[in-house]
C-alpha cells in the first residue's frame, strides 16, 4: 500500500490557521506549512514521513509521538550561529523561513550508507562496546574505533558562537502547579480558592493537555477553568514553560520559550526561571507506551494518541488506512477520530479477549471491525508501513491474515509522568491493576519541615480518567509486554524498545542472560533509555521485558528514579 496525498484534511485542525501559509525548508526542499503547525505536522502535511535515521543502525524512522517524548523526529534547525542539532520536530512550532535538516544520514535521508550497520546488527550485540574493549584489542583500535568515530554522535555540533540572548528570572509562589491540563487547572482553582498565590506552568503553547482532543466538550471545560483562574489576581498562568527539575526545599527550575527560532523579535530567546515553591502540585499527565511487535519501528507505526493529535489538532492525515492496535479502550478514540475525518480504519486489533467498554461499542456502532484476542505478528514494509500480518495474541505468531494499511496506531497503555515527584526523593509504587508505576503518597519528597511538599494530580497520579463528567466508563488495560505473547526469537529480535538507541527486546534478554539483574546495569549495558528522550517511551517496557527474563515481578529489578533535568 502506498502513501498517497492529500495529507492535509479538508476540515478540522484546532491548532492551525489555514489563512496563513508558512514557507520553510527541509533538506533544501522548499515546503509550506500552516500557522500553528509544528515542524512534524508540517512535514507530515507534505507527505514527508521519513524524518531521520536511528543512532546505531541508521534505520529509517518517522515520528512516533506528537509531543516531548518523541525519540525519532530530531532535526537540525537554523544555520550559522543559530544552528541547533537534535530539536524535536513534534514540539517545535513552525516559523516563517525555518531551515530544517535531517540527521544521522549520509549522503541523504533516502539513501544512507550507514544503514549498512543494520545488516551488520548481529555483529553489534548488546554490550558491544564493553566486549570489544576487552577482548580483541587490535580489532578495537584498527577496525571498530575508526568506523564508530566516523558515524558516532547524534546530530552535528554548531560551529559559530550563539548570537541569541537569554535571561534569568525569579518567582515565588505558595503553590506551583506543573501542567495546564484539566487536572492541573482544577488543582490550581482549588489551591487559589484555599488562599495564597498560585503559579501554573504549561510546557505547551496551548492549555488543556489531552482534554480538548479527547473529549467532546473538553475545550469548553478548559476555557471555563481558564476564565475562572484569569479572574483571580493571586493566580499567574505561564505557557511555553517547562518545569525541568525539582530541587531541595521546593526549588523548581523552569525554562520558558520566548522567541525560539524567531530571532527577529529582538527579545531574549529563552528565560530560565528559578522558582521557590511553598508546595508543588505535579499534574504532568501520562505518556502512552508503545507495543513491542516485530518491526514496530517502521515509519508509519505511531502512538495512537499521536495519530489522533495529528488528525484532530493539525488536520493532518499521517496515512489513509489506519490499523489501530491496542490493549486498552483509549486507543479506540483514535479509530473514531480517523473514521470521523473520512480516513479508512480497516480494523482495530485488540489483544484483550473482550472489549465492551463505551468506546469499543461506539467503534462497532460506527461500523469499524474490532478483532479481539488478536495481535500484530509483524509489520510489512521497510521505509513505510505497507500492511500488517495478524495472529492470535496467545500464540507464537503463526500468521492468520494480512491487512493493507499505511499507518499503525499503537497503544500499550499509559505511564504517569512521575519525574518531578521522584527528583527530590519521592518514591514510586507499582500499580498491579493498571500495570504502571505511580507516585507512592506515603513516601513523598519532604520539605524543610519534614512534611511532603509535592502532591500529584490527575493522570500523573495514575488517575487516567480524570476529566470528571467528560469521561465514559472504560474497560481495564491488559498488560502486553511482547506481542504476540509467545513470540519466538526471530520476532523478538525485531521488536524495538528504545527507538533512538536501537535497543530491542532480545538485547535486554541478552543482558539478563549475561547476569545483569539490576535495571541500572542493564540500562548501561544495552543503552536502553539513555538516549536524549531519556527513555520516556522505552523504560517501562524495557523493565517489564527484563523482569520477565529474570522471572521476577517488575518491581524487583525496577526502582525507577529520574535524573534531573527533564529534557524537552
Amino acid at each position, binding site marked *: 500500500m502506498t502513501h498517497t496525498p492529500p495529507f492535509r484534511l479538508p476540515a478540522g485542525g484546532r491548532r492551525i490557521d489555514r489563512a496563513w501559509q508558512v514557507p520553510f525548508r527541509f533538506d533544501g526542499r522548499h515546503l509550506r506549512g500552516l500557522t500553528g503547525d509544528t515542524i512534524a505536522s508540517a512535514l507530515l502535511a507534505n507527505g514527508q514521513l521519513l524524518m531521520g535515521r536511528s543512532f546505531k543502525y541508521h534505520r529509517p524512522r518517522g515520528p512516533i509521538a506528537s509531543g516531548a517524548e518523541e525519540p525519532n523526529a530530531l532535526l537540525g534547525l537554523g544555520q550559522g550561529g543559530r544552528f541547533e542539532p537534535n530539536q524535536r520536530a513534534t514540539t517545535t512550532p513552525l516559523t516563517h523561513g525555518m531551515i530544517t535538516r535531517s540527521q544521522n544520514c549520509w549522503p541523504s535521508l533516502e539513501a544512507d550508507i550507514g544503514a549498512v550497520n543494520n545488516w551488520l546488527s548481529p555483529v553489534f550485540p548488546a554490550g558491544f562496546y564493553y566486549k570489544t574493549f576487552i577482548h580483541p584489542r587490535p580489532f578495537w583500535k584498527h577496525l571498530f574505533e575508526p568506523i564508530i568515530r566516523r558515524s558516532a554522535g547524534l546530530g552535528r555540533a554548531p560551529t559559530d558562537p550563539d548570537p541569541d540572548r537569554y535571561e534569568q528570572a525569579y518567582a515565588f509562589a505558595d503553590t506551583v502547579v506543573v501542567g495546564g491540563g484539566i487536572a492541573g487547572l482544577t488543582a490550581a482553582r482549588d489551591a487559589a480558592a484555599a488562599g495564597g498565590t498560585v503559579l501554573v506552568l504549561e510546557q505547551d503553547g496551548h492549555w488543556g493537555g489531552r482534554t480538548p482532543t479527547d473529549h467532546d466538550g473538553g475545550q469548553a471545560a478548559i476555557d471555563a477553568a481558564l476564565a475562572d483562574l484569569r479572574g483571580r489576581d493571586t493566580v499567574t498562568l505561564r505557557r511555553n514553560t517547562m518545569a525541568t527539575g525539582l*530541587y*531541595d*526545599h521546593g*526549588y523548581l527550575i523552569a525554562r520558558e520559550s520566548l522567541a525560539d527560532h524567531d530571532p527577529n523579535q529582538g527579545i531574549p530567546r529563552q528565560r530560565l526561571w528559578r522558582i521557590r515553591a511553598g508546595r508543588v502540585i505535579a499534574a504532568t499527565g501520562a505518556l502512552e507506551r508503545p507495543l513491542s511487535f516485530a518491526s514496530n519501528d517502521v515509519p508509519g507505526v505511531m502512538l495512537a494518541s499521536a495519530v489522533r493529535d495529528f488528525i484532530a489538532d493539525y488536520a493532518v492525515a499521517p496515512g489513509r488506512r489506519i490499523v489501530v492496535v491496542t490493549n486498552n479502550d483509549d486507543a479506540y478514540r483514535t479509530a473514531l477520530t480517523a473514521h470521523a475525518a473520512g480516513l479508512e480504519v480497516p480494523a482495530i486489533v485488540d489483544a484483550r479477549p473482550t472489549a465492551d467498554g463505551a468506546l469499543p461499542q461506539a467503534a462497532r456502532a460506527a461500523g469499524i471491525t474490532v478483532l479481539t484476542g488478536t495481535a500484530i505478528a509483524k509489520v510489512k514494509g521497510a521505509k513505510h508501513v505497507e500492511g500488517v500480518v495478524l495472529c492470535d495474541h496467545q500464540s507464537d505468531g503463526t500468521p492468520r491474515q494480512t491487512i493493507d494499511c499505511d499507518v499503525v496506531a499503537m497503544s500499550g497503555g499509559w505511564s504517569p509522568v512521575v519525574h518531578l515527584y521522584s527528583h527530590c*526523593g519521592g518514591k514510586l509504587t507499582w500499580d498491579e491493576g493498571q500495570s504502571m508505576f505511580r507516585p507512592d503518597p506515603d513516601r513523598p519528597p*519532604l*520539605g*524543610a*519541615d*519534614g512534611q511532603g511538599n509535592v502532591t500529584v494530580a490527575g493522570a500523573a497520579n495514575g488517575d487516567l480518567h480524570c476529566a470528571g463528567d467528560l469521561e465514559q466508563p472504560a474497560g481495564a488495560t491488559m498488560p502486553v509486554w511482547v506481542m504476540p505473547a509467545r513470540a519466538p526469537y526471530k520476532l523478538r529480535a525485531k521488536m524495538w524498545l528504545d527507538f533512538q538507541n536501537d535497543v530491542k527486546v532480545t538485547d535486554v534478554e541478552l543482558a539478563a542472560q549475561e547476569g545483569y539483574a539490576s535495571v541500572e546495569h542493564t540500562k548501561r549495558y544495552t543503552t536502553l533509555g539513555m538516549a536524549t528522550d531519556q527513555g520516556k517511551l522505552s523504560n517501562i517496557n524495557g523493565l517489564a521485558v527484563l523482569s520477565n527474563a529474570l522471572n521476577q515481578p517488575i518491581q524487583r529489578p525496577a526502582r525507577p528514579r529520574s535524573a534531573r533535568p527533564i529534557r524537552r
Partner: protein
Amino acid sequence: MLILTCPYCGVNAEETELHPGGEAHLARIGPNGTDEDFESYLFARKNAKGVHFERWRHAYGCGKWFLAARCTATLQVFGTYRAQTPHPPADIVDAIRKARPDWTPDWTPAEGIAE
C-alpha cells in the same frame, strides 16, 4: 537549595545567601594534643546519613555564623541556633527526637557549659 532560618536576624535565607562551614561542635585540640588527636580534629568528619549538625554563615545577610540541625537524607531541618554553644541546646534535641524517636545524642550534656 536549602532554606535555613538565621537565628540572629530571623531571615529565611536561601542557600545562595549562606556560606557553609562544615561540621559543627568540633572540640579544638590544644598544644598538648597528640598527633592522633590533631589528625582527628583536622580531618576526621562524621559524614552522617541522617541527623547532622552544621556550621553556616549568613554571608549575604547579617554576616554571623550560626549552627543548623538537619537530616542529610530527607533534608528536614530540625532547627537553627547560635554558634556559641558546645552542644545543641535542649529545644533542638527535643525537635530531633520528635521527628526521629530512635535517635540519641552522642554527647553527654554534663560536659556542656551551662547555658
